[in-house]
């Protein structure tokens, strides 16, 4: 039995039935990581020792006839934005290099309680800011379908490790598309649940009102399995939802007859790659064949999604990232060289001398100057500016108003249709370095995904075809609040009728 060829559902069943031990399974994936990750760079930390110890303990418990959790023995890779007690948590930033949180994120705690095996921490855009994974302080992740291309981001490591079968399941986080877009570019399935469905506690905050943790796996069925474990109310996250968690895996069977899927004509505007369009059109046809009907709908304010997102997210980020000041943990600049110091060369206008108010202010400025990467600094600047006296009303307050309009668009749309379908990104995976010189072009990779977060609803992305060049094309479904069962069911049905999600990248096989 080759674990890397099994789905998460199959792995859990095989271990429970004794067809495979947790150690065998974990070792198989660890071996793949050892073999492949040198060229992909999906992991910032591989915890071979810890994973094998956990797996061995699970096997011993199984042997002793003791009860096992629902994910017993399932290897799970966790995005490095989630705190893990025994593993470094860096958010792919120099600022947090070496930081070991004294606690587990709620999601990590739930995974451990379910007897999943945490195999490592995945690479990402620094502080989840980016759409290509090129903003990692520890080097970009390569797309397993073409190592010269980006995997998308910010959960690029999570997407790439699943695409390369280095883990059957990974945890990602999605603030403006960070699960769905890399899932689409890497040919896997990624679910961004409704805001608040999964606790944010222990997820290093980027934009608190938008951040949401979700599963990334080969299939909807595997996502459903993991979501059952990580979803649920957390009394220690005030924004977590109290609604009961359904058994998602039990709700996949129902047919799609009568399902109404909305299509937004605006999603077919200029800039949509023809091969992506073809894949998306074919996906709609599959859904029609499965009994669904397709309806053109409008999301009139969707076009303001990106500018709205790029105000709200940086505003919250500018405040969320203020805690990284070098005083209490994380990177701290070497003791000051006096009140007058040279600014860090390279990054900013070099050479100019800078006046600091005090050694303390100098420590702050230099620690942050050294610890944060370019994109993080850019967003801190954007957010700080937009929240400043005199600009707040014009930027942040206005963005909140537009956000309400976008949310209303979705509410109106879901009066007419059950789900909204469309492309997840306008193009397939782009080349590494292709967009790094143009931040605005990079921001547009979130074009089809940010509105989901602004509206607080759920979305799922999955492969719906391939380009002639062999790159996956992603399809996105968005649903109303707490419609995860429907998103998963529709995707599962699609995956029963197609085999796009079963394709493996040849390059790294």
């Amino acid at each position: 039995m080759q674990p890397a060829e099994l789905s998460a559902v199959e792995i859990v069943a095989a271990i429970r039935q004794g067809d495979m031990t947790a150690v065998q399974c974990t070792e198989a994936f660890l071996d793949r990581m050892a073999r492949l990750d040198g060229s992909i760079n999906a992991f910032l930390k591989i915890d071979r020792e810890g994973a094998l110890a956990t797996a061995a303990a699970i096997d011993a418990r199984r042997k002793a006839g003791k009860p096992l959790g629902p994910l017993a023995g399932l290897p799970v890779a966790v995005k490095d934005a989630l705190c893990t007690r025994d593993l470094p948590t860096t958010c792919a930033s120099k600022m947090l290099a070496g930081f070991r949180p004294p606690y587990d994120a709620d999601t990590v705690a739930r995974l451990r309680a379910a007897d999943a095996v945490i195999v490592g921490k995945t690479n990402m855009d620094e502080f989840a800011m980016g759409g290509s994974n090129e903003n990692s302080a520890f080097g970009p992740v390569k797309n397993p379908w073409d190592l010269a291309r980006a995997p998308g981001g910010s959960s690029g490591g999570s997407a790439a490790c699943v695409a390369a079968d280095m883990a059957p399941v990974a945890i990602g986080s999605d603030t403006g598309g960070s699960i769905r877009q890399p899932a689409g570019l890497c040919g896997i399935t990624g679910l961004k649940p409704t805001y608040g469905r999964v606790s944010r506690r222990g997820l290093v905050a980027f934009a608190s009102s938008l951040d949401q943790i979700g599963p990334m796996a080969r299939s909807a069925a595997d996502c459903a399995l993991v979501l059952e474990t990580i979803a649920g109310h957390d009394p220690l996250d005030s924004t977590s939802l109290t609604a009961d968690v359904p058994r998602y895996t039990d709700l996949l069977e129902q047919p799609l007859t009568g399902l109404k899927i909305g299509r937004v004509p605006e999603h077919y505007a200029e800039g949509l790659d023809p091969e992506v369009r073809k894949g998306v059109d074919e996906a709609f046809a599959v859904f029609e064949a499965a009994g669904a009907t397709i309806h053109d709908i409008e999301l009139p304010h969707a076009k303001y999604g990106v500018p709205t997102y790029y105000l709200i997210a940086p505003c919250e980020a500018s405040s969320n990232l203020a805690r990284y000041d070098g005083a209490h943990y994380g990177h701290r600049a070497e003791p000051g060289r006096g009140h007058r110091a040279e600014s860090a060369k390279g990054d900013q206008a070099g050479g100019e001398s800078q006046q600091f108010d005090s050694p303390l202010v100098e420590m702050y400025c230099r620690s942050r100057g050294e610890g944060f990467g370019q994109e993080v600094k850019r967003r801190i600047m954007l957010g700080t500016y937009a929240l400043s006296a005199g600009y707040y009303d014009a930027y942040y307050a206005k963005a909140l108003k537009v956000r309400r309009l976008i949310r209303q668009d979705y509410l109106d749309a879901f009066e007419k249709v059950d789900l909204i379908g469309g492309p997840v990104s306008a193009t397939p995976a782009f080349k590494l370095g292709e967009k790094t010189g143009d931040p605005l072009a990079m921001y547009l990779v979130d074009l089809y995904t940010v509105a989901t977060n602004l509206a607080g609803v759920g979305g799922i992305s999955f492969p719906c075809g391939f380009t002639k060049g062999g790159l996956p094309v992603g399809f996105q479904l968005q649903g109303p609040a707490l419609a995860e069962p429907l998103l998963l069911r529709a995707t599962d049905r699609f995956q029963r009728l197609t085999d796009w999600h079963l394709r493996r990248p040849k390059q790294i096989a």
Partner: protein
Amino acid sequence: MTKPAAPTSEPYTTVIGLEVHVQLQTKTKLFCGCSTAFGAPPNTQVCPVCLGLPGSLPVMNREAFALAIKAALALNCRIASFTKWDRKNYFYPDLPKGYQISQFDLPFSSDGWLEVVDPKGAFSRKVGIIRVHLEEDAGKSMHDEAAGTADTRIDLNRAGTPLCEIVSQPDLRSPQEARAWLNELKLLLVYLGVSDCNMQEGSLRVDANVNLHIPRPDGSVAKTPIVEIKNMNSFRSVERALTYEAARQYDEWQATGAELGKTPKQTRGWDDPAGVTRAQRHKEESSDYRYFPDPDLVPVTVSEQQIAAVKASMGEPPTVLRTSLAGTWKISAYDADVLVNQGRELVAYFEDVATRVGEGKVASNWLQQDVLRTLNERGETIDAFPIRPEALADLIGRVQKGDFDTSRGREIFAEVLASGRTVDDVVASLGIAAVGDDELIALCRELLAANPKIVADVQGGKEQAAAGLIGQAKKKNPNVNPAKVRQTCVDLIKAMD
């Protein structure tokens, strides 16, 4: 109601508004479960939330919110049905998240007032309250300048402690009024169990805004620039700082003519030993806090039922208690004020004594003259006072019965206090016994026989001459009641006629 302070010699009116921060008396912090107890070793009452570790999230402490509502209701504020949390962003090492969770444009309460009445009738002042909001406290920076290292150490035990900020209207008109108002505010909050208001421990902090209104000969009024005074560590410092600042502003106005609106608000720090306010650097006062709603917390809605429940648990505030105490025990408003101002425990002690004695006035006198003086001398509070109400009532009762006089009673009081023994023991050990009527008459006869001049004087109409016998009587028997000696002697002399 509002009555100005007695006219002063100053050629201006001092206009004062106060900003008071009080720590709420909760067991745990505002957004996490850490203890708020004062005095623990540094950084031992902390967790990922109040340390601001990555990924940590705040959860509102409902008890703290209820306590804040209690404070606001006592200050006659309107309670908002919808309120939210905002982030106030600034960098400081004792603020681990880089922002403070506070309330900006929608505080949970606003538009209240608190009146202060000078018991001696010098002034009464109803001071408007603009708003009361809830926020988390920062940690403490301890500047350790020992050994020339000038290290700053950070203690985050206090970080996240619930803090109410109370902002008054600029309704106060003298430093004395400001101090009296602060006393009243403190009394109220302590009565309600909202805060211990201990300034030494930092659970009450005051900043003052002050300027002058100076009438000009043409009838117009010149207003000096508003100055915010910080670093005042006691109500006395508040009064002193305001007095100093008013005089300074007047001098400055005479020298420069600077008026409100033409210069930005200045912040000055009070230097207590030097007795002066000093300008703080401009940098320290100008800030853009970039307030915005905290996305980690949900807005709070407050129902009428919640407000009613808090109201029901409030107990009598000092103003009501003063009136009821004066009425119930037939003591003067002044006496009631003195007792109530000592706090709820002392009032309970007084009522216990008064009930046992069956009279308020005498109990009030004993409390004010003897108990309070002792407490002040010892720097103690009533709950630590060794003479319990039943013992004091017993002593007062014996004096009232005439077993011994008040000054003898005071000696017993002092001895009970010093020795820790019971009143009975002390009475016995001092050989104090009630003097019977026969014994007294015999003693007086003896005195009259030995003092014919006094007898003659009394017979001649100078009754007060009998007082001359009291000293001699006390020498012979220290337990005699002077008033009784005098009266008995007079009666005996009159009987001789």
